[in-house]
């Protein structure tokens, strides 16, 4: 089985393979942040911190314990989620920009602490050995991508997801409806961190080398840009946003040093021309149904309307 998959992967040009895996990891991280910022409406500027915690936990689990990769990833996810819950419990009482700066501060603290710990090899960074699995990494990454998309879609349409959307819409109204706002916020934070932790673990094992400085403020901003570009709260949007922004630096490579210049300009232009993100008001299933000549399900339309009004409501405060 492993050999067969290895053969398939071998057919693809390694350069494209690298881009594909980067896109996959980008999608996983964007989906995680989409749960926190898109679905629950809590602005986080420190998502890279959870990726960092995941990457180092997973790398250390492989190095020190030689754990099988599957269990390693799941354990990494749970550890990251536990840290997020621990951090989230006090800071999620803050709202809006105060929360944003706290997550930013938390991310900087995580970075500096990892830069000073012996176990993370200080500023030298860790060299990560190959993952203990026979399945090639690109397939693992895209397997996790599919799994994440399925899980997140499921959450979107569940009771839990609706509660999160209620919190996004209006916290006081949600509380009046009997939703334990803090609990749901912490849970969504932990869930987003779980996904980010798994993404970090994949990143560590695919790259083979991790350094705390790789997970700085700019990485968090990268992930946030993916989510906002795609359209807050939209799963399809996150996937598309992550694909565009992960691939953009590669396609802009021919411009060499102008690359980041164009990237910055691109962010500004995209926001000016599509302020609600690419998929802000569009739902993928709606599009498919319309293409088939059917009207989207009524419930879907209602949900979309609700999320639209709540989004514009958020914009004003």
């Amino acid at each position: 089985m492993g050999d067969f998959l290895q053969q398939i992967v071998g057919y693809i040009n390694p350069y494209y393979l690298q881009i594909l895996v980067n896109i996959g990891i980008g999608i996983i991280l964007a989906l995680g942040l989409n749960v926190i910022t898109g679905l629950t409406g809590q602005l986080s500027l420190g998502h890279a911190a959870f990726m960092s915690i995941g990457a180092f936990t997973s790398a250390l689990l492989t190095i020190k314990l030689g754990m099988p990769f599957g269990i390693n990833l799941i354990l990494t996810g749970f550890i990251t989620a536990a840290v997020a819950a621990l951090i989230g419990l006090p800071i999620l009482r803050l709202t809006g920009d105060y929360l944003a700066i706290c997550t930013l501060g938390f991310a900087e603290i995580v970075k500096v602490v990892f830069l000073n710990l012996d176990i993370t090899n200080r500023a030298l960074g860790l060299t990560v050995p190959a993952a203990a699995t026979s399945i090639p990494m690109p397939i693992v990454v895209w397997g996790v991508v599919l799994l994440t998309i399925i899980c997140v879609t499921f959450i979107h349409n569940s009771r839990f997801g609706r509660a999160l959307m209620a919190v996004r819409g209006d916290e006081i109204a949600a509380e009046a409806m009997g939703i334990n706002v803090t609990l749901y916020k912490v849970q969504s934070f932990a869930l987003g961190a779980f996904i980010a932790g798994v993404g970090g673990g994949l990143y560590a094992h695919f790259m083979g080398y991790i350094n705390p400085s790789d997970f700085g403020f700019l990485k968090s901003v990268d992930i946030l840009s993916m989510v906002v570009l795609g359209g807050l709260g939209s799963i399809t949007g996150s996937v598309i946003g992550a694909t565009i922004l992960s691939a953009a630096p590669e396609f802009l490579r021919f411009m060499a040093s102008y690359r980041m210049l164009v990237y910055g300009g691109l962010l500004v232009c995209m926001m000016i021309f599509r302020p609600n993100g690419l998929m802000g008001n569009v739902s993928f299933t709606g599009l498919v149904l319309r293409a088939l000549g059917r009207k989207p399900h009524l419930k879907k339309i209602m949900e979309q309307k609700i999320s639209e009004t709540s989004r514009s409501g958020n914009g004003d405060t």
Partner: protein
Amino acid sequence: MFFQQLINGIALGSTYALIALGYTMVYGIITLINFAHGEIYMVGAFVGLFATAILKVNFLVAMLIAMLVCVLLGVLVERIAYRPLRKSSRLSALISAIGVSIFLSTLAQMLFGANAKGYPEGVFPVKQITIGSAEISTLQLLIIAISAILMIALEFIVHKTKIGKAMRATSEDYNTAALMGINVNMVISFTFALGSALAAAGGVLVGLLFNAVSFNMGLMAGLKAFAAAVLGGIGSIPGAMLGGLLLGVTEVAGVAIGFSSYRDAIAFAILVLVLLVKPTGLLGRKIQKKV
């Protein structure tokens, strides 16, 4: 020793405060975290450098030139990147600001190179003054003095002039201010101009203090200044000053005690701790939640 570190901290803190004021004023009026502000500060430092090195002007003149250039830049950035987004969600404006920040720092890297540059020798003749056991450089005193003058000038503009009144009205309620005949667009441009001028002054002063100007100096300084603004209560001008000074002093104290490798974390640790106790910052107004 204590006095010495206190002066070091206040000098560093006043530069944070200068940058933080720009964040807090812009936030007070259009509730936007202007992430490009740190880059404006970086540009200010570079303009000051070139003014002293190429035009060979006095550093005070260089500072004025830097302030002027940054005023233009700040207003231009607002016009291009934020004004079209004023009606859309705040996150879009935030991403746009981050885009501007990446754009400006990359541009600076391409134009000025990746290496840190120092101000030419003798721009400001530094002397050491000994007071008791403390050695204080005239440069530190200058930084504290200039920051104080600028902040007093700002207080004067905000509280005693007509445009300051318009600023306060706009920050109180954007729509009502517009209904009362205030030209809100002009007020917002003016706010960006003021903030950028202060950041440019901060940039020149920091350039002199550390004698190093580089394309990426805006990021960390911007984040810390933003932390200072939130620490003091974002939207509050005295809060930004207090927050900046507090962060500067604690950072220097932390380094003095021996946490120098944790230097960048100290500011944020203080911030997180203060916000947990006082969620709207030290001097922030209590927000009433309404449905």
